[in-house]
């Protein structure tokens, strides 16, 4: 089973924001360096002065530094706030959702682009199919009630509809943190933050609400040589599952999200079972209008 990334889950709201902001800031700083070399050139740029005699060479050197920092200076961490790190009992590799039909909708908006919503739905669909469910996915809950031919042959006992919507709860990217970071040659990190929420709603075939939960988390990005170095040195001593650098944020968010979605779907399935059993048996059809002359009753001789 392929697992998605954090970007699929929260959309492209923040993807690349760190490097974009960083590049913009350096674009503004670079021309000033080349104009007033002697007074503003930072200490680390004075070392290869022979190489940087001409303005062109200096710009190339500066651009290389920008590229170096932009590609290595960001540390992204993920913090589950509520719901995402709630206990999960189901094992996502087991057939937990056998005999279940799920109509899945990932609604774009709130930071989730159409392509991200499609990618998220595709991954969640695979997640549930790996657990034995029969899944159809899209951006809206529109579906042929008759179902697919294979469903018509052996109809699943439980029919659920799951809707996933995204919200951007809060975003913070203060220019002062960038100023402070650059004034210390990025030894002090610049911090940006995004709080997101995924609203998950699961209903049964009749539209009865079975589960409604909000999964909330934060993505914090720290930029700077200092934080990058400390994080990666620290990762050398940490166990692999506690790493902070590299792809750890994506990995952790994906694991939390998909495990939690599996648990919610399973709980909804059990709840739907209870409702199905508890539902009163359908009453026999009642005759409307005045009773006729009992056509099936035998005639009295």
């Amino acid at each position, binding site marked *: 089973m392929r697992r998605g990334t954090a970007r699929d889950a929260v959309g492209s709201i923040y993807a690349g924001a760190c490097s974009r902001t960083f590049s913009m800031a350096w674009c503004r700083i670079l021309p000033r360096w080349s104009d007033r070399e002697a007074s503003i050139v930072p200490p680390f740029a004075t070392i290869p002065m022979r190489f940087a005699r001409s303005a062109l060479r200096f710009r190339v050197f500066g651009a290389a530094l920008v590229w170096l920092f932009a590609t290595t200076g960001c540390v992204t*961490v993920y913090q589950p706030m509520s719901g995402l790190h*709630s*206990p999960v*009992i189901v094992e996502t590799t087991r057939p937990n959702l056998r005999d279940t039909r799920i109509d899945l909708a990932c609604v774009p908006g709130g930071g989730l682009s159409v392509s991200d919503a499609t990618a998220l739905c595709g991954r969640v669909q695979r997640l549930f199919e790996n657990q034995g469910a029969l899944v159809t996915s899209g951006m809206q809950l529109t579906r042929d009630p008759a179902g697919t031919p294979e469903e018509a042959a052996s109809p699943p006992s439980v029919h659920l509809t799951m809707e996933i919507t995204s919200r951007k709860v809060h975003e913070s990217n203060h220019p002062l*943190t960038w100023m402070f970071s650059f004034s210390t040659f990025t030894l002090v990190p610049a911090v940006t933050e995004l709080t997101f929420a995924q609203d998950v709603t699961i209903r049964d075939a009749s539209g009865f609400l079975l589960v409604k939960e909000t999964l909330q988390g*934060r993505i*914090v990005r*720290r930029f700077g040589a200092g934080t990058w170095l*400390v994080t990666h040195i620290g990762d050398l001593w940490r166990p692999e599952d506690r790493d902070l650098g590299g792809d750890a944020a994506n990995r952790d968010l994906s694991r939390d999200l998909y495990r939690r979605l599996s648990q919610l779907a399973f709980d909804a399935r059990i709840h739907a079972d209870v409702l199905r059993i*508890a539902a009163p048996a359908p009453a026999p059809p009642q005759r409307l209008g005045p009773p006729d002359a009992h056509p099936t009753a035998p005639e009295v001789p």
Partner: protein
Amino acid sequence: MTVLLFLGLFTPAPGLFRSKAEVRDLECERLDIETATRDHPGAVHEVGPRGQRAQREIVVCRERLLPTGTRPEDAEAVLRTLDQTASGAARAAASLRPDLRDRIWLVEAHHASTAVTTKIAFATKNALVEQGLSVSDRKPLLNAADLTVLTRMGPDEAWPVACRRWHDSGGLRPTDALLALVQRDARATTLHAGLCDRGRWSWLR
């Protein structure tokens, strides 16, 4: 301190001062200033009469009662929300069956862990008392032959049969009603409530 806060070094996110495991023991929520001042008086400075100079961001985090990993996941899942679950079941019983208000209520719980089962039963009894109902500590018993048969059945069949047997054997008197909180599947994190009244079983939620 202000500068460090401003730089985000003391935020609850994992980093230099907090490990990932520590962060996972926190339940956090983002609040607006009005809600934060109302819910946490003293901890958050109130907005002055002329408004606030800079936009403030409040993230309130509560530490979990027990660190992650102290209890098994299935027990943790049930116990974290036990108060709401028990109250919800008691409310449902009281509101859906007002005709049973004068009965003496008995409570039965079922969970994979015996310790958790005891806690569920205790919480449910308290919740029933809060609804103004009469609650008894008596446990309806079944004989060994009944138990042998019941343990071979699934929850859909076992609970109605158990209810009938309690009624027939006199374990559940006509003046009693029984509320059961059941974990229907070992993989589920939710409990379901059922009611036994004079040998008739019905699922409440």
